[in-house]
C-alpha cells in the first residue's frame, strides 16, 4: 500500500462516514455540519485524481458558499432544530431495497467496465489547460455559461424582492 492509497482511503473514509451521518443524524444542524466533512473529503478526492482546479472550486463554492447558504437556511427557519425527521421502518425498508439495487448495479458497472484510464499521477496542473480550453474550442459554452449565470442572478433578484 503506497502513500497515495493511504491518503485515498483516508479521504474516502471521511467522505462516506460523514455522508452517512448527514442522512442519519436526527438534528438537522448536526447533519448540515457533517455535510462540511463530506464536501471536504470530496475535494480531497478530486485533488488526488489530479483535478486540482476542481478541488479548489469544490472548496470555494461548496464548502465556502453553498454550505454556508444551507446553514443560513437552517438557522432562519423557525424552530427547525426541533423538527424530528421521521425515519421509521416504513421508510427505511423501501429505501434500503432501492439503494441496494441501485448500488448493486453501480458496483457491477464499476467492476465489469473497462474504463478509459488517464495517468493522473504525473499529469500537469489543470488550471492552464482549462483556461486554454475555455478560451479555445469551448468558448461558446463559456459565453453560454455567462448567460446561465445572468439568468441565475435575475432569478435570485426576482425571488428576493417582495
Amino acid at each position, binding site marked *: 500500500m503506497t*502513500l*497515495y492509497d493511504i*491518503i485515498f482511503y483516508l479521504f474516502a473514509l471521511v467522505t462516506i462516514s460523514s455522508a452517512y451521518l448527514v442522512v442519519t443524524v436526527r438534528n438537522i*444542524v448536526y447533519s448540515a455540519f457533517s455535510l462540511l466533512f463530506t464536501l471536504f473529503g470530496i475535494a480531497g478526492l478530486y*485533488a*488526488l485524481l*489530479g483535478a486540482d*482546479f476542481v478541488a479548489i*472550486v469544490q472548496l*470555494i*463554492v461548496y464548502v*465556502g*458558499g*453553498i454550505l*454556508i*447558504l444551507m446553514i*443560513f*437556511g437552517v*438557522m*432562519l*427557519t*423557525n424552530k427547525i*432544530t426541533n423538527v424530528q425527521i421521521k425515519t421509521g421502518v416504513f421508510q427505511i425498508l423501501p429505501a434500503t431495497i432501492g439503494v441496494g439495487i441501485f448500488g448493486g448495479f453501480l458496483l457491477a458497472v464499476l467492476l465489469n467496465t473497462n474504463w478509459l484510464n488517464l495517468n*493522473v*499521477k*504525473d*499529469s500537469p*496542473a489543470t*488550471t*492552464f489547460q*482549462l*483556461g*486554454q480550453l*475555455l*478560451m*479555445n474550442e469551448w*468558448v461558446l459554452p*463559456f*459565453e453560454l*455559461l*455567462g*448567460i446561465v*449565470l*445572468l439568468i*441565475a*442572478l*435575475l432569478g*435570485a*433578484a426576482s425571488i*428576493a*424582492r417582495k
Partner: protein
Amino acid sequence: MLEQYLPVFIVLGIAIVFGVATVLSSIIFGPQRPTTEKLSTYESGMKPVGTTKERVSIKYYLIAMLFIIFDLEVIFVYPWAVQFKKLFHEFGISVFISMFIFLVIFEIGYLYVYKKGGFKWD
C-alpha cells in the same frame, strides 16, 4: 503529481493532530471543578434568555445567494487570469474579448440587481 500535494497533506495532518490534541489534553489534564457560576453562559453578565439557536434574518440568505453566483463567476475568470500572459501570447487580443463578453453579460445582471435594490439591507 502527488509530490506537489505532499506538503499540503502534511500540514493538514499536523493541523488535525494539533487541534484534536490540544482539545483532548485540556480535557484530560486540566483540573475540573465546575460550579453553577462557571457553567453559566456569561459568568458575570445578564441571565441568558431563550435558546442559542436564534433565527437569523432572511436577508442573510439573499446576500449569501448572490455571493455564490458571484463566486461562480470568479471561478471561471480564475483559469483565464492566472495564465493570461501565456494565453495572450498564444491567441492574441481575442482572449481579452471573449472574457470581456462573458463579463459584460454578467455585469448586466449585476447592474440589474443593484438598481432593483438587491443589495440594500433595509
